């Protein structure tokens, strides 16, 4: 009996260890394919059901993201001005905003395919870019979609997404900074909350 427990314990441990060992490119590929598979079959999402897209993103995509890190990067030096409580609110609000944006993008999906570019993980690397490309059937122009991942104790976590060279996270830097400059940290929190509220209203309408 004891050995059975040990065996199960050992298996569980092995499973967690394996989960941690998933290479960043494999992670991106698995999640992308999984999500696309669902979106391809889901007519509701394709016809603009943002709520359903949000649920999908929350379940499949989010566990692989590090939102604290994202918020910190978007706020740059203002991050340190915020109290831990404010940092928590900011992270939550930014989380909501990014999820909504990402979900909206999913509802615009139309038969594109995603190609994964060659990737090799060098020994000891903890900060990597995994490159993918969205290919539109027929038209020549592809869009690069790159993921930046960082190694955390719980595995690789995405902390930035770049679309055609535009970083979704750093693109908020200037507007966050000017908001903080004019209205302080509280002002930024208020404007994020207002933005998320208005987004909620439109996604309910749809």
């Amino acid at each position, binding site marked *: 009996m004891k050995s059975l427990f040990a065996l199960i314990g050992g298996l569980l441990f092995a499973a967690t260890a394996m989960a941690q060992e998933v290479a960043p490119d494999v992670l991106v590929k698995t999640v992308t394919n999984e999500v696309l598979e669902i979106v391809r079959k889901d007519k509701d999402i394709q016809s603009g059901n943002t709520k359903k897209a949000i649920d999908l993103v929350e379940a499949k995509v989010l566990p692989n993201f590090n939102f604290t890190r994202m918020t910190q990067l978007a706020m740059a030096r203002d991050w*340190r001005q915020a109290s831990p409580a404010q940092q928590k609110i900011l992270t939550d609000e930014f989380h909501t905003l990014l999820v909504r944006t990402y979900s909206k993008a999913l509802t615009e999906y139309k038969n594109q395919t995603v190609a994964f570019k060659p990737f090799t993980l060098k020994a000891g690397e903890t900060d990597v870019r995994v490159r993918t490309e969205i290919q539109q059937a027929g*038209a020549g122009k592809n869009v690069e979609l790159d993921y*930046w991942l960082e190694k955390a104790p719980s595995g690789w976590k995405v902390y930035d997404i770049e679309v055609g060279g535009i970083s979704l*996270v750093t693109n908020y*830097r*200037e507007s966050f900074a000017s908001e903080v400059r004019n209205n302080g940290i509280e002002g930024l929190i208020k404007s994020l909350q207002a933005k998320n509220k208005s987004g909620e209203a439109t996604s309910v309408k749809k």
Partner: protein
Amino acid sequence: MKTTLPARIKTVAVAVAATGLLAGCATSGNPKDPIEGFNRAMFAFNEGLDAAIVKPVAKGYDAVLPSPIKTGVTNFFSNIDDLFIGVNNLLQGKVPEAFSDLGRVMINTTVGLLGVIDFASDAGLEKHDEDFGQTFGRWGVGNGAYVVIPVFGSRTARDTVGLVLDVAADPVANHRPTRTRDLALALRFVNDRANLLPADKVIEEAALDKYSYMRDAYLQRRRNLIHDGNPPREIEADAGPADGPQTAEAGVPDPRAELAPVAPVPALLVARTQASSEAK
């Protein structure tokens, strides 16, 4: 003499560039955007124009035409662009890319029925994205001030000069008779706008302040294009350590946070961008 459309566009572009460069009065906190007041007004004008005329027309076009036709239109103009992209690659010293662009034009113009079908991409000849603004960037010319110009939208001072050359060298704008040229210019404009329709909703969803969101996206995009997808990484710029909220709890003020001035950061970036493009 009646001025032609491209001539007028050029005049407008030059005038606006001049205004943009000289009107240093409407200052703002952002060193990349010294004429923010002027730019916001122009942005509002462009948004109004888009909402009233351009977007409805693009929507109609998008709804009426079947997507193979739209793809054909996109490819047709894209093929004409390739010629000019090749010239810019040559000017940037990227000879293999320039030959590849020429190969694309040759394949697509013949087998691809005047460019309507993009066989070259299927054959593995990658589509590039170049223009005179990028060529200047490669040569080490900095961005200059960000400027929003009528109809065309976001540019930098450098890219505005680039745009004037782009228009001057554009085979479509130089096409005669003017009647077909105007038709072609209008078709290209509407088709380009229609291709951007899906992005609209995402931007509306994402942006806290649409003006600065579009500005910063434009600046990032141009930087990426000038470096052909491999710009020096800037994300770590004074972001601090990656250990989350605990940093503030420790209550130890980081001396850099107090000392770091606002202006030199972008200035440093521009310098780095230039240095690395010169090094190439």
